[in-house]
């Protein structure tokens, strides 16, 4: 356990990097996921096809493969950025498929009468969605969306293998492999770092879930 006490600042910094990745990826994935969900319910066939293709690809592809394409496919197109940017975007794109599905099922949970009423007072597609459906859908979107976000935090560990470095899991790898520290305390420290984020997040989610639960 001494290794954790001696190097706690490394683990803290790793935790910080992980949180940073998750913050940016989380914001981005919400935007992208909402946009894709919009595409999937839109009246334009190419947009719907695009949305469906997007979800099919990112839901069924392992994250490691997605991240590979971010780290090596995008530069092959002549676009360069730091691996932090690539990794964060990759994580966000992968997660956006799940965000999209959470939102879409939330939209589907709103009673059809609401949309019909909105249309009958003359609202268009965008207005119906923005003013009537989405505000009501939020409460059934929040719980699954929270699970998606917690899953994303855990998935960020994989992003560390694609050039980012310095995240919590990467610190563990460095300590155990390059510096030859005992493996068990190092990995327990890493696990603890993730649990510090995920368990409170889970509790918070449970609380919110009870708060917004629809009494039927």
């Amino acid at each position: 356990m001494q290794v954790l006490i001696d190097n706690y600042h490394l683990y803290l910094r790793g935790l910080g990097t992980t949180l940073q990745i998750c913050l940016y990826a989380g914001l981005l994935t919400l935007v992208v996921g909402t946009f894709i969900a919009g595409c999937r319910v839109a009246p334009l066939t190419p947009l719907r096809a695009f949305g469906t293709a997007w979800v099919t690809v990112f839901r069924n592809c392992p994250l490691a493969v997605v991240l590979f394409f971010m780290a090596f496919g995008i530069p092959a197109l002549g676009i360069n950025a730091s691996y932090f940017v690539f990794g964060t975007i990759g994580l966000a794109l992968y997660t956006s498929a799940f965000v999209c599905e959470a939102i879409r099922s939330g939209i589907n949970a709103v009673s059809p009468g609401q949309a019909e009423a909105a249309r009958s007072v003359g609202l268009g597609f965008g207005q119906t969605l923005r003013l009537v459906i989405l505000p009501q859908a939020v409460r059934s979107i929040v719980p699954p969306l929270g699970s998606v976000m917690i899953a994303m935090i855990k998935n960020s560990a994989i992003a560390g293998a694609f050039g980012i470095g310095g995240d919590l899991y990467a610190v563990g790898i460095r300590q155990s492999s390059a510096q030859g520290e005992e493996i068990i305390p190092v990995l327990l420290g890493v696990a603890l770092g993730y649990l510090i984020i995920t368990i409170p997040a889970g509790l918070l989610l449970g609380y919110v879930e009870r708060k917004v639960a629809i009494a039927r």
Partner: protein
Amino acid sequence: MSDSVLYEAPGPRARLRARYASVITGLVLLAVFGWVIYRLAQGGEFTYEKWGPLIDPTNESFTPLWTLLGKGLGNTLLAAGWSILFSLVIGTVLALTRVTAAAWYRWAVVGVIELLRGTPVVVLIFFAYQALPVMGLDLPVMWSLVIGLTAYNCVIIAEIVRAGIDSLPKGQSEAAYAVGMRRGQVMFNVLLPQAFRAMLPALISQLVVVLKDTSLGFTISYPEFVQRGETAIENLGNPIQLYLFIALIFIVINYTLSKLAVYTERRLSRGRKSSATAEPESAATTGD
């Protein structure tokens, strides 16, 4: 709510506008796609040297490459199969004991479930690979992967099983008790068989998750599909092509599995519309 409820059945002008908009978005998407192809072609990614081993049977690397990848896919399926099997068994045990056992045991189970659920699966796999040998448990590398995946997925399956049992009408167990069955009998003869039926779609979806996660085997050099791909890349130097192929195979397999899940769900819910089929929030929908 079907999607069409969101907008009016379009009239002639709206149809025309929609057609224009469709064409334009279609063209934009095509343009992006075309640009990607163009840049890849410029970068020399469409040369015979890079694609030949993958698509040309007369290429000298074709047979060894496909054999290598085939074995890798086999190993992926093998590890995924064992993982889902063990997860199912352990998950069911966890779920059942959680419902029935003493309070301290329930708390212990909840604790373990939360710990395993909150830790990234790649950490669990690495732990099984590196720490178990130090602790004296020395297993072939496939079992490290299977143990890591099982540790992670059994608790998710436990939740699925629990939700499956909860979704059954109370009358089922009451009737079973009424005809004199004991608790074990009620569980194994009445509740579990029905619960498994209801859970089947969620279980198949979970298989998709496990299958994707076996790709993390490359971090511990288990010769699964992605790791074999890496070996091929070391020899052939065509990472983009091979990863495209790997992605394609994963998408095809997992898409088929997802469709299978939807199909079973439809079949199962047919004929008993009234009792909503259990739809426990499966990890497959969260990207877990």
